[in-house]
């Protein structure tokens, strides 16, 4: 396993980093889409996050890494049986960050019959796929806009329901699959289907930094890393540890963070002003703002949080208004300025 570029050494992509951190604090925000220029460190950031995430407890010997504390209906069938038979033993495991490589076939994504057992022993057994491996973690799809449509459909279905149902060769398996979907891509290679766009909680636009100082910094850090990856990672270890602590603290604080009625109303007004379709935008905005408050050590969600997250939570949900030639980001920002003047 090659050494990952440290998360805290990534420069000049604040919105993307924040969105990833929010996804790490609250998995329910429904995924992060990172769209933008080439060479902006999209994949680097996700791999860096994977190396930094705090560990979590998982049931020993569970193929899906079930949460020992979870409600019964979120456990897989085997863990349900185990709990009935007297309790679940658990251990610390890393949070899975699973790559969905391009060219993956459906059987490996969804899960299928175990080929090896079928060939060697003539047995039929279920072999979990990537969705099972990503349970309670992250599923990362680079170049998500190049993914085959039938795979996308299968993914969306599972992401929405939180469980994966496989019917194959007379085998019927149902297992939990809750994951944060992270998709990245370059719009020049192809647009994303609107149905898929809406499923992502946060949508981040990344651009190549255009000022010399940031660019020099990026290039220098990259050069230093390439010369001696382990030494570089070591140098940034403490900063990364701080970020990790921020995540764990925020996870712990999250249930305590309050959302005052006032803030709810303001979020609703913002969404109405922008005319976003459905409730998903509003819900995401509130959830993400809670996670942000937790990350920043605030006990209450307020307008500053909404202001910061309005663009990533809403920009991909706007109807295309043919009379308005400004981009969706600018439209969100304008509405924010009008409703919550600083």
């Amino acid at each position, binding site marked *: 396993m090659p050494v990952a570029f440290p998360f805290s050494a990534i420069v000049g992509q604040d919105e993307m980093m924040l969105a990833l951190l929010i996804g790490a604090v609250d998995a329910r925000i429904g995924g992060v889409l990172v769209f933008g220029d080439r060479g902006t460190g999209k994949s680097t950031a996700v791999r860096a996050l994977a190396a930094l995430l705090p560990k979590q407890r998982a049931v020993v010997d569970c193929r899906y890494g079930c949460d020992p504390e979870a409600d019964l209906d979120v456990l897989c069938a085997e863990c349900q049986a185990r709990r009935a038979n007297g309790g679940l033993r658990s251990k610390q495991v890393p949070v899975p960050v699973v790559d969905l490589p391009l060219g993956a076939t459906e059987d*490996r994504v969804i899960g299928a019959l175990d080929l090896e057992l079928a060939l060697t022993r003539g047995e039929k057994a279920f072999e979990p796929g990537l969705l099972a491996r990503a349970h309670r973690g992250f599923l990362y799809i680079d170049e998500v806009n190049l993914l085959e449509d039938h795979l996308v459909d299968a993914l969306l279905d599972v992401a929405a329901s939180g469980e994966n149902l496989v019917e194959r*060769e007379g085998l019927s398996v149902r297992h939990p699959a809750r994951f944060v979907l992270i998709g990245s891509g370059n719009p020049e290679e192809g647009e994303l289907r609107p149905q898929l766009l809406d499923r992502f909680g946060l949508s981040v636009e990344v651009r190549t930094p255009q000022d010399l100082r940031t660019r020099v910094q990026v290039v220098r850090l990259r050069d230093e890393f390439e010369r001696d990856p382990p030494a570089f990672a070591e140098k940034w270890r403490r900063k990364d540890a701080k970020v990790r602590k921020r995540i764990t603290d925020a996870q712990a604080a999250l249930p305590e963070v309050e959302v005052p009625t006032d803030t709810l109303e303001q979020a609703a007004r913002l969404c109405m002003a922008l005319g976003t379709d459905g409730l998903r935008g509003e819900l995401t905005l509130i959830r993400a703002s809670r996670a942000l408050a937790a990350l920043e050590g605030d006990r209450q969600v307020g307008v500053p949080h909404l202001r910061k997250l309005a663009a990533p939570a809403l920009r991909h949900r706007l109807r295309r208004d043919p009379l*308005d030639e400004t981009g969706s980001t600018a439209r969100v920002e304008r509405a924010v300025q009008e409703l919550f003047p600083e």
Partner: protein
Amino acid sequence: MTMAQRDDQAAAPDPWELAALAAALFAVDPVGTGGVALRALPGPVREQWLADTRELLPPGTPRRKIPLHVADGRLLGGLDLAATLRAGRPVAEHGILAEADGGVVELAMAERVKGSPIAYLCAALDTGEIILERDGITLRSPARLGVIALDEGHDEDERVADALVDRLAFLLDLSPIGIREMGDLPYGPEEIAAARERLPSVTIGTEQVDALCGTALALGIHSIRASIQAVRVARIATALAGNYRVGDAEVTLAARLVLAPRATTIPYLPAEEEAPPPEPEPPDQEGESENQPEPEKRDDPLADQVLEAAKAAIPRDLLDRLRLGQLRRSRVRSTGKSGQVQQANMRGRPAGVRRGELRPGDRLSVIETLRAAAPWQRVRREERGRTATPTPGAGTAPRIEVRKDDFRIQRFKHRSETTAIFVVDASGSSALHRLAEAKGAVELLLADCYVRRDRVALVAFRGRGAELLLPPTRSLVRTKRSLAGLPGGGGTPLAAGIEAGLALADGVKRRGGTPMLVLLTDGRANVARDGSGGRTKAGEEALTTARLVQAAGVAALLVDISPHPQPQARELAQAMGGVYLPLPHADASRLSAAVKATAGI
């Protein structure tokens, strides 16, 4: 001979010398540099370059060729069906990329490779490994490699995919090099090996990184990967020269090799190149080129020196390329891919298979279905043995048991048809002549479209409004008939014309086609949408409507056919996010050629 001697003058370097140097630098660190996009037709020069590179790489370095229509399974790896069935257990087969770990892959006819093979290559270049999740196999194999993309493209439109080029440090063009201009290699394998040893210890100074980044910005190079690669190349060059600290000569060389071929603007460009300059600058003025807001560091001699060297190495035909590139880019931005590619059940080129139920209209891929069924035969036979009741039919169990799960359905891709919508200014002054040329262009295009199954439509505006003269069609006869009766004269209701064209484009899009607006006008509107006169209001309305074109993401081409091109028309084209083409004496054939270039048809 040291690097410094070779590079202290800012004169244009000898192309073969640079190419040979690039070969040596690439050989020192194929993985770090990502590789070479090698533009050249097959021939002795390219062969020599490839042979030289091969010679410089350490013996035993893996080298694989990727053929043009490589299958995903061959590139990435997968289940080796024959071995699996023989062994009675799953046997994975490495793909080309994994086999080339530690070495080099050559991508044949790289300019024609698009889509998934490019994405796989990019993934391997980014992560240095191939993750395989296919055919019931999970396999992670290292694939640290360098790519030589053999680009045999003739013109600017045939180029290696941008995503790949962005990851390759060297862009070489061997086509101007003649056989007699080839020289010897500046370095031998021993020097390469020594440089490999030295490379990890080579360091680069702060101001040198500054100079490279600044030069990249000044040349309008957007992606930051180019700067990162330039730093790498400077370090490699230093290692090759036998030093441990990057010198200014190596920085200059890196700028020449990595940055110059990617330039999108030429700093301090004399204004003579642009036909109608908005405000002519004296050529020697020390200002920046207009789309370069980044202030130059005047007090930084190194940065200047590097920039000068890079400028000297900028290919001479860059300006032409920039213009064409602009045509190309504007097309890509507005339509996503080159022509919207659609998946359909039955038409187009085969594009892989998918698992699924066989619905009416689907086509079963027999081979893939049998492949999918093959590994499961044993388990199914045993299952049948257990459950089968002793009936007379039991003895005639099928040789191969294919089940519903095995069905693989052939998928096809076809490019959605392009509809070129001509919006023609049929007003006043020069209407008659202009209309005649537009008609000619439509007919010429249509003759092409008939072969390519694309469509054309025609809207004319004059007097108080716009009129749809020809709904999207492929019919040559119908076109001729409706064009014959096209009247001219009156005011210029430009906004109404664009609006009508846009409405048509919307309809085309809804039916799954790719519309493209071709606006023939001088941009001087004088009739507003409500039919009232007045230049100011009409002009503003035209601009607003033009912005709608951009918002709708419709590709647009504005052909300015006034005898003296006017700024209004250029503004209008900008508002549409489209391409501006002044053709004062547009004739039908030039017009249809321009449309074809913009639409990629």
